């Protein structure tokens, strides 16, 4: 099964995305802080990483940068809500994020970007 790592410091977003993505037949893992990100990325191979941008400790842009250096083959989807003066998603794109999603986005939007980047998930009833 295709493995997806979701990174966000908001546990509710993690819960929502994990739910959505797992139901679509992907193996969905989550990380909510620098420690979990590093643990997840060190021990495992993921087919896709979805990351929030504005996070404490380790910024999403930093995560993208690290990933581009250490695991350049993993496609990255960046997500963020728009904030103030600078558009972080532009930066994310420049750093090599394959897709950028502006919060709020729909469940279809995230599934579409999964489809485009790594293809369809396993057929259903492996939801949990």
């Amino acid at each position: 099964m295709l493995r997806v790592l979701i990174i966000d410091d908001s546990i509710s977003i993690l819960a929502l995305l994990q739910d959505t993505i797992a139901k679509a037949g992907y193996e969905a893992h989550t990380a909510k802080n620098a420690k979990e990100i590093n643990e997840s990325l060190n021990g495992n191979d993921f087919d896709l990483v979805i990351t929030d941008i504005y996070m404490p400790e380790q910024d999403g842009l930093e995560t993208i940068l690290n990933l581009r250096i250490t695991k350049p083959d993993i496609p990255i989807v960046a997500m963020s809500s728009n904030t103030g003066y600078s558009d972080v998603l532009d930066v994310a794109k420049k750093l090599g994020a394959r897709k950028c999603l502006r919060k709020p986005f729909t469940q279809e939007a995230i599934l579409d970007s999964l489809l485009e980047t790594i293809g369809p998930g396993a057929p259903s009833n492996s939801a949990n």
Partner: protein
Amino acid sequence: MSQTKPTDVFLLEAEDLLSVIEQGALDIAQDMTDSDCINRLFRAFHTIKGSGAMFGFDEVAAFTHNVETVLDEVRSGKISFTPTLIELILASKDHIKNILAEDADKKTGETLTSELALILGTTQTQPSPSQEAKETPAQKESGPKSYQIYFKPSPDIAAHGLEPASLLDELRDLGACRIAIDLDELPKLDELQAESCHLAWNIELETEQGIDAIKDVFIFVEDESTIRIVQSDTPQSSAANQNNDSAEAAPKQPAKASPKKSGVPQSNVRVPSEKLDRLVNLVGELVMNQSRLSQISTSIDSTELDTPVEEIERLVSELRDSVLGIRMMPIGSTFGRFRRLVFDLSSELGKEVELITEGEETELDKTVLDQLGDPLVHLIRNSLDHGIESPETRAAQGKSPRGTLRMSASHEGSQVVVKIEDDGQGMDPNKILEKAIEKGVVPPDANLSEREIFNLIFHAGFSTAQQVTNVSGRGVGMDVVKRQLESLRGSIQISSKQGAGTTVSLTLPLTLAIIDGQLVEIGGDRYIMPMSAITENVEITADERTTQNGRNLITVRGDLVPYIRLRELFEYTDAAPPIEKVVIVKHNGERIGFVVDRVLGSHQTVIQSLGKFYKEIRVVSGSTIMGDGKVALILDVAGLIADDANRFKLAATV
């Protein structure tokens, strides 16, 4: 596994974030330049906005966006914090909470939005229309500024694919640059790791650009590196910053230290408290069944059975201790909630109050903590309202104009003592006594000690009078506070020194789930009395009972102690043993005896509540199932005394 819906997770998360916001705003009230705190605030609003939008809380997202924008400007130094802004943030927090609770007032939202917009508007137009001034409004004059920059990358910067030299180049692009290398931490040649960066740089930069432009240079390395940027031609701020520097010049990395603080709670697992309650109940039942099992095993007397039964006994008791341990929570979070109350109240009353909290790490059962909130609010209100004087009055009395409210918690044996202390005007015993006599609470010729007089304010008849507050300074609803504490099996003491302040001490049990009790027997049934109240057990003979002319009094070492005969109260009709036992308890400083048939010994037990059908019964606080499967009721001492007082219209002793 997870049965919790993501939306519920969001609501929980939002609740957490809102409390982060409240704490953050109050922290900033102490130090308006605390950038860690500003970031924490910003991040909390940002997450509420982002997550809120994802879960369809559009109103929350739209409203929060305004606050976030203002904070973003604060973060970038374009707006500075003011007390008004702090109040606005707190009000916004309340508003968001109301929206989430579907209890929001549209008008409040609109007012807040326009006030926030006003703050944004003034800063964008006020300082100067010039682009530069907009970039760095902190500075009055335009033109190049010089900055002192200290940059120490993390040793493994190269491993992250970053090159310090290119960052220095970027700085040179900003303006005239003098760069000095700092070799202090360069190790000896044989210890030198060629791949690591041991260098640091001191940079003097003169630039037309704002501090943001400099920060942007370091944007990808700021978390890993030690970076200090000080503007050098504003003497005041640079002095302040340098002070800061020397304070944290040590090994600590300022950029890294703060997120860890906020990161700590994230490693916890959140569980709805109902699940925990259920777990505690299950463990309680397990404990009972285990003791039945032990009992049966003893009667069967099989060595084969003994070993596993003993093992189960050990495991169950360990399980019980750890489950009850999960429910223990530090009192700090409860204390934290009152910072807002103190902040709001003192500005409302025009008083200056500093809240000092001590012993935040002291742990109490969650149920106790939850129910402790109301009484504490009451006591704090009293202290601020009537205890601490206005700054003028204080100054006139030679006190510091800023009053102090101290909340502390500490363990004392199996109990926790929470103290609320103020350095206000204290209570006047003469005025309280006068009032009490006027109200008919005590007879005019009453000869009371100071402590007894202070205890009068807990009397229900005393506290209903509104004007008491003007006279004594205390007394509003103190009887309610006392009742609430008694329902927690706690007690309250008050001491006060006129002119110097008042201290209220609350004594609470560590947990409500377990009771340390004394097992007694009446007419073949067993009851448990809470050990904490018991002072001694004495004997009473049938003769002694009859010699007092039907009055329920017993002589204990020369003193007359009133007693309640439980077998009469519970209407047992069988014959009483010739010598009965009297369990003497101390209640509100008075001794009262409870006559039982036999005292069986001490017994620690998990309390089972009786369920809602029995909630009107005040004389019994719960039940427990004994090893042999029989039920023992847990007696509520305060309830029994109150019941007796009602029955015989006895004047309450205090």
